[in-house]
């Protein structure tokens, strides 16, 4: 093994003093002018970050203030965006929330003058002061806020903090030191270290990464590949997108480490075409790496070379499955094939290929830098480290959270996520996307790890966590997932193609009220049998896990199925065919809008007088309910 050159940020003729000064600037420990940092991930942009940036630029120009504007990734709290952080020389970084364009001027004026704004609602908090900084008096520290307090952020450490387009900032924050360390290690030692750390695949399966690598390492071949699976297709999951948008170099560093460990000199990133911003950030990051000899030939003077190619997925959920993904990279229909041979023996273009998920790879730099023992000290007996979850649905603080394995679902939802809005009661939480399951309220105290989730009929999956309250119908939720899965079933194997369609048809008939009370046992029996057969007989993980939403709702929310079929009732008022609509004569203003919108002319009434619905003509579409601006339409 040749000598690995150290990573130098500055040319050798830069004096030590100057290097320190520039380093402090890159780490933002010591500034020479104010910096504004705007959360400009996809979520931030959706909330209007571009308009905020435009307004901030205008403000700086009009007031002739010399300050930098930096676009950062998502810090994880999507619900309070747009986020605008201000850091003044000698002061800690202050974070302002919900800074829409109209708020920019009134918030920047006091803050740039070193005073907290009077609009307290917009103060999110401040970072801990470092270097020569002093704290803001009266602003809470971010790490003391409930949202951050219980989190353990390894993978997300830089997200929303550093400039994702600057390799210098990543290096200044300790980046690429682990890659240099890994390059000096033998492949065997590297595989051993990762196996010892206990890191398991974060894409869903939970297979130990080090064990998988060893398999590829043992296979002799002239060419091996590493594939990063960034085809984050689970509806309700967006952590991979956030990591790539906010800290792309962490992923690339992980890929360098993994490629070296298996001896691959070519790697692919298979990423959804629906993530244009993430792709843009990756292109920049790869370019920067090439300039600094962190990618390309003889990386850092070692005998290891690596080329990374971005492959844009074309929208097929099944391509999250390893063998389907490989077919897609080869330019074919993304259909899975039976295993063995496993991709580690024969993968892309018939060569040994290791496929790792974004989060798995993003964990590697810290593991190599701080050691397997450190990583293994966090988490539970069988699941080490942390997991990033995408919290969404009926929860106050939607966003990205990273917690140590073993944290309970209740802690995540109530302590970090702030609980359920609008005084509603939680019904359950759907974990792991369409392949996962619904965990009911009474099981929220389980400690999250790969095994415990399986005991309640769910799975880790990629980490989507959708919270449901009493307004969500669990039969409808099962129908929603089955509709998704049967559309995404590739059609190659019969059990999945027909099985998912049959389950969907049964669920549709239940929600449409087409079964009678006498059908109850027959319907439930059929649905359960169909679910089991599909799970056992399907070719790939998509079909094998497709019945999970049905099986888990049948297990924990059977009473809702019984109510739908046996009593023709949907307690959550979601299945409209089972509802009766009435207009409350007291609240109705007689505006006539519902009458206009009713497609079956079931609503009658004179202008400015209370209207009525003719139950015989009503087709239960619910348009009147959606249209009424006065909440006069009631559903029973």
């Amino acid at each position: 093994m040749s000598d690995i050159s150290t990573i130098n940020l500055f040319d050798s003729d830069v004096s030590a003093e100057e290097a320190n000064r520039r380093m402090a600037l890159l780490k933002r420990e010591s500034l020479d002018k104010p910096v504004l940092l705007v959360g400009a991930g996809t979520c931030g942009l959706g909330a209007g970050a571009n308009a905020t940036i435009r307004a901030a630029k205008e403000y700086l120009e009009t007031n002739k203030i010399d300050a930098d504007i930096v676009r950062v990734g998502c810090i994880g709290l999507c619900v309070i965006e747009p986020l605008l952080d201000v850091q003044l020389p000698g002061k800690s970084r202050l974070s302002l929330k919900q800074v829409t364009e109209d708020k920019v001027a009134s918030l920047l004026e006091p803050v740039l003058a070193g005073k907290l704004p009077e609009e307290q609602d917009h103060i999110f908090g401040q970072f801990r002061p470092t270097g020569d900084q002093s704290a803001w008096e009266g602003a809470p520290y971010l790490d003391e806020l409930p949202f951050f307090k219980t989190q353990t952020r390894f993978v997300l450490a830089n997200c929303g903090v550093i400039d994702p387009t600057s390799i210098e900032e990543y290096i200044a924050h300790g980046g690429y030191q682990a890659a240099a360390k890994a390059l000096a290690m033998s492949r065997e030692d590297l595989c051993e270290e990762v196996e010892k750390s206990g890191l398991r695949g974060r894409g869903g399966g939970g297979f130990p990464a080090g064990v998988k690598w060893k398999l590829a390492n043992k296979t002799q071949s002239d060419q091996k590949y590493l594939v990063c699976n960034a085809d984050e297709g689970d509806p309700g999951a967006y952590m991979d997108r956030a990591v790539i948008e906010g800290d792309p170099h962490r992923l690339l560093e992980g890929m360098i480490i993994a490629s070296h460990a298996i001896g691959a000199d070519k790697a692919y990133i298979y990423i959804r075409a629906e993530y244009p911003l993430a792709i843009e950030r990756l292109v920049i990051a790869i370019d920067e790496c090439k300039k600094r000899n962190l990618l390309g030939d003889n990386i850092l003077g070692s005998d290891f070379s690596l080329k990374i190619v971005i492959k844009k997925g074309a929208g097929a959920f099944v391509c999250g499955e390893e063998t389907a993904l490989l077919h897609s990279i080869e330019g074919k229909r993304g259909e899975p094939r039976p295993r063995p041979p496993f991709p580690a023996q024969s993968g892309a273009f018939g060569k040994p290929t290791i496929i790792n998920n974004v989060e798995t790879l993003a964990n590697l730099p810290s593991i190599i830098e701080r050691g397997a023992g450190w990583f293994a000290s966090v988490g539970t007996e069988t699941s080490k480290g942390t997991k990033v979850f995408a919290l969404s649905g009926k929860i106050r603080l939607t966003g990205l959270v990273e917690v140590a394995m073993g944290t309970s679902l209740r802690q995540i939802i109530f302590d970090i996520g702030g609980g359920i809005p609008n005084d509603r009661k939680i019904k359950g939480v759907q974990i792991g996307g369409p392949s996962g399951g619904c965990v009911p309220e009474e099981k929220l105290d389980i400690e999250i790890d790969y095994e415990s989730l399986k005991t309640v009929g769910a799975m880790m999956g990629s980490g989507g966590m959708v919270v449901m309250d009493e307004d969500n119908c669990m039969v409808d939720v099962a129908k929603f997932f089955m509709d998704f899965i049967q559309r995404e079933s590739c059609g190659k194997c019969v059990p999945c193609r027909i099985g998912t369609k049959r389950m969907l048809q049964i669920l549709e008939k239940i929600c449409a009220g087409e079964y009678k009370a006498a059908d109850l046992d027959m319907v439930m029996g059929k649905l359960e049998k169909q679910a089991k057969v599909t799970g056992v007989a399907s070719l790939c993980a998509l079909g094998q896990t497709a019945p999970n939403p049905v099986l888990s709702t049948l297990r924990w929310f059977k009473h809702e199925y019984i109510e739908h079929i046996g009593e023709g009732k949907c307690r959550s008022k979601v299945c409209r065919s089972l509802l009766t609509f009435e207009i409350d004569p007291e609240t109705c203003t007689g505006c006539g809008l519902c009458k206009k919108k009713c497609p079956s002319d079931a609503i009658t009434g004179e202008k400015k007088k209370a209207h009525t619905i003719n139950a015989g003509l009503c087709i239960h579409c619910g348009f009147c309910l959606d249209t009424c601006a006065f909440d006069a339409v009631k559903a029973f």
Partner: protein
Amino acid sequence: MDGIENVLSRFSDAGPDSLIPILQDVQEDQGFLSPDSLAQIGEHLGISTSAVYGVATFYNQFRFHPLGKYPITICRGTACHVKGSSTILEALKTELEIEPGQTTEDGLFSIEIVACIGACGLAPVILIGDETYAAMTPSKARKLINKYRKRAKS
């Protein structure tokens, strides 16, 4: 040189593994994949048109008809669903009198369903062109359509 040849020239000595990137670039250039372009791509790569069509129809990203002037993308991910995206889809369908995957007769609007945009924190979400609209309701969606109709007239 017309658009498709221009795209194909960027893949001058590409093999069949470049089929998907080529389809993506051609669609970006032309807005959709016409029967002629599928045939041309096949010829370029030395694979049959039916094989090209087989791959193109497998993936959700590819379209075989032009999009509307204001293409509407509605997110039907889980987070959007539990916050009522199905009622928004219904509202769009009745307002525009088209189904997902179709374009209105006047060529103004088309509806596409996407599994998840990844902006779950802003659910339910629709996109019109590149513009994101968060926390939608059926009535907000209808108002938005009317806004775009007016914009098209002026």
